[in-house]
């Protein structure tokens, strides 16, 4: 399979990568046995329920890393409901968010 330049760019230089200190929510999906695992961290504004910051860690192939980079870009600034419906859930299935609060 040939990756597009956009995917390659996100794979080589992913956005929002890294562990977040004191996140409001964190979720891990996937399994190393399948070759893919992603952890996503969120900071959420209490009043507006907007995602103010988002980051991820990925054990996986190029498309896994690039997808995480793209969807975290898209989810940033959106409300939790919008993000879950349009970006995060669509890409990774239903996240079982675990609030750290």
């Amino acid at each position, binding site marked *: 399979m040939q990756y597009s330049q956009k995917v390659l760019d996100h794979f080589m230089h992913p956005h929002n990568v890294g562990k977040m200190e004191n996140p409001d929510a964190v979720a891990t999906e996937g399994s*190393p*046995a*399948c*070759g893919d695992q992603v952890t996503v961290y969120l900071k959420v504004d209490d009043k507006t329920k907007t995602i103010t910051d988002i980051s991820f*860690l*990925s*054990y996986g*192939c190029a*498309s*896994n890393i690039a997808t995480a980079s793209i969807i975290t870009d898209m989810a940033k600034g959106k409300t939790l409901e919008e993000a879950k419906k349009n970006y995060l859930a669509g890409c990774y299935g239903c996240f079982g968010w675990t609030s750290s609060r």
Partner: protein
Amino acid sequence: MQAGRIYLDNCVTTCPAPEVLTEMQPYWEKKFWFPGTFISTGESTNSLINKAQNTIAETLEASAQEIHFTSGGTLANNIAIKGLANAYKQQGKHIIVSVVDYPDLLTNAAYLEKNGFEVTYLSADSEGFISLEELKSAIRKDTILFMTTAVNHTVGTIQPFAEIKAILESADHKIYYHLDAGQGYGKIPLKVNELGIDTMSISAHKIHGPQGIGALYQRTGTKLAQLIHGVKRVDNLQTGGLSIALIAGFAKAVELTFRDFEANTAYLRELSNYLLNRIEKEIPYVELNGPRGEKRAPHNINVSIDFIEGEAITMMLDQKGITVATGSACASEGLKANYVLMAMGKTHIQSHGSMKFTVSRYTTKAELDETVQALAEITQELRNRSPLYLAMTKEK
């Protein structure tokens, strides 16, 4: 090869030697004739084919008439495996192969299994050696064929030929023995009588010859049921109109490979050891897959890099102009972990994180230096992104 690219996937295919290209040129342009008798053009081609058969036969301590040209290793494997099974099925329909063998052998075994043969699949140990105990106990009165892969295509394991020969010869009836030597030919000594084999497949493009040509060794007196039906052009096996230029190129590649076999293979081993030493020294949490030392083919290094995934490593190396291979499921057609590594008892993570580097006589230490430096940087970069690596560092 792409200029400036570091190519370390020589178990898949190798760049043709410049001498091979020069050797082939006249046969594309002027001496393109098929073999024949009476007329000078055909006779000239006959001579070339006989000479090429001789060149290959000498390297195997076989006779020229025992060498048949095919379009490659896969055709040679098919002609031999199906040919032996069908030629001797009156004596029995039991076949033995191992779970770590080359796909040609396993797919042929599966085909024969669907067509009335019984197949025993031997297991392998953690270094990729087939189980000799299982081989001994698998042999039955109706066993007609044993086949294996001389050098494992994933981890470079050299099978214990002397022990295999002794076991097969201790049976109270003849068991035909086919060897896939795609990875072995030109890398380790392979003498047909010493091995005790009846048939063997080899391929030109694995030894800096052209793609599209291989050969089948068939011991004199060993029968092969005919697989292909067609016109007899180049070979009695009716393999069709094989390219004379490719045969000339194959013979030249063999000549170059075996001209100084000891020095050539010693250089490959020196390169592999150098690469492995540097990787083990400079990249933590790396494990060699397959045996260490003389029981491993000289051109193969396969390592699992923990906490990260091989397709991503391969892609990043590719972006830096370095071609390697991985056992990652994401890089496979069926999205499955590498079957050889899994059969050796490796975990999914070890299989997905496995990287195979195969060197050639054109590889240089400077290229390996560049590769290790790139690999170390990429490994750190991907580990910084990996939740598995983070979990490990937290635990410590």
